[in-house]
């Protein structure tokens, strides 16, 4: 879907940071991608190859860290990792919509020279 434009944005951010460091090359970048971010990691890898061709990130590696969903139960004040897409507290069986983690889409690290 829109992974190519997302990776283009990511590459722009990465190139800005690299340029600020006076660097010429990007060796690898690392992303954190939430399970609920709506992005498919495999598609990101392909998109990364497409958008980096001929740039300072040509041949760079992409590392994707998947971030699992963590919910909060308002009845028993605990965080839990749901199994599947139904977010129900394992202790009191209440449904929750309170998400503490899982929508991330972040550039967290890179290596330049």
């Amino acid at each position, binding site marked *: 879907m829109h992974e190519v434009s997302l990776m283009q944005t990511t590459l722009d951010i990465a190139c800005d940071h690299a340029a600020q460091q006076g660097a010429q090359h990007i060796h*690898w970048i690392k992303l954190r991608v939430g399970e609920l971010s709506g*992005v498919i990691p495999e598609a990101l890898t392909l998109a990364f190859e497409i958008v980096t061709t001929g740039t300072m990130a040509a041949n760079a*590696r992409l590392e994707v860290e998947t971030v699992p969903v963590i919910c909060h139960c308002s009845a028993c004040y605990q965080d839990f990792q749901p199994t599947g897409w139904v977010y129900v507290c394992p202790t009191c069986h209440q449904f929750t*919509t309170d998400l503490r983690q899982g929508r991330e889409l972040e550039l967290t*690290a*890179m290596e330049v020279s």
Partner: protein
Amino acid sequence: MCEDCGCSAGSVQIHQGHDPQPNKTTTSLEVPTPSVRHLDLHAKILEHNDRIADQNRALFHQQGWLVVNILSSPGSGKTALIERLAQDQRNNWQIGTIVGDLATDNDAHRLGHAGVSAVQITTGTACHLEASMVSHALSKLPSKPWDLLVIENVGNLVCPAAFDLGEQIRVVVLSVTEGEDKPQKYPAMFKSAQVVLINKTDIAEAVGWQRDLAIANLQQIAPQATLFEVSARTGAGMHAWYAYLDQCRQGLNGPLSRSQNSQVLQIGRLSSN
């Protein structure tokens, strides 16, 4: 945090001189450089979109417009629902629309015929609307004291979920021809909805729509959403949806933010008229 030395202070961390990936591939043309640096960042990739969405939201709030973002698969009836809304409410609300489509401006024409001001955003290759496109479209919309601004997103149940446009209400349309398990297949989309409209109920029986199963699925995947069963074709069930919009308009001074609004599922009854 850097796996090498564990440092994590500040938003950008630089490590001179050590290389956490000693086996990386370098081309032979590359001049060996001692200044391999590792940067720790916290850059949100959608930060630019989120910032413009916040600007949109501030504008909507300041103008007192209720703004609704409608999402669904292609053909669920987004345009038909807006046409029906425009006809039914023409004497009550001043309604503006912004329509996203990959290639044509057919939807804007249809809405124009229904008597609403419509601005078409032709997205080309983009499969979703972004906050900047809405912000741009706003400049083409005639300036009126809108009661309601309806944004029809691109027909797609995947990526529009990730793009905040600044709307107060996100509506996901599920039509009875699409299958009862749509919420399970596209959880990110349904979990982001304040409202789910089940559309085309006029043909529910003909297509063997399993209503109880579909509602149970929605209650599990999207317990935050308010649900209405409607038909854009016959107008059935629409008044409950209009009453909800009216309530939201009254409550504009205490804005519904996307994270605050966590109501229990209410089922809009199918009307018999």
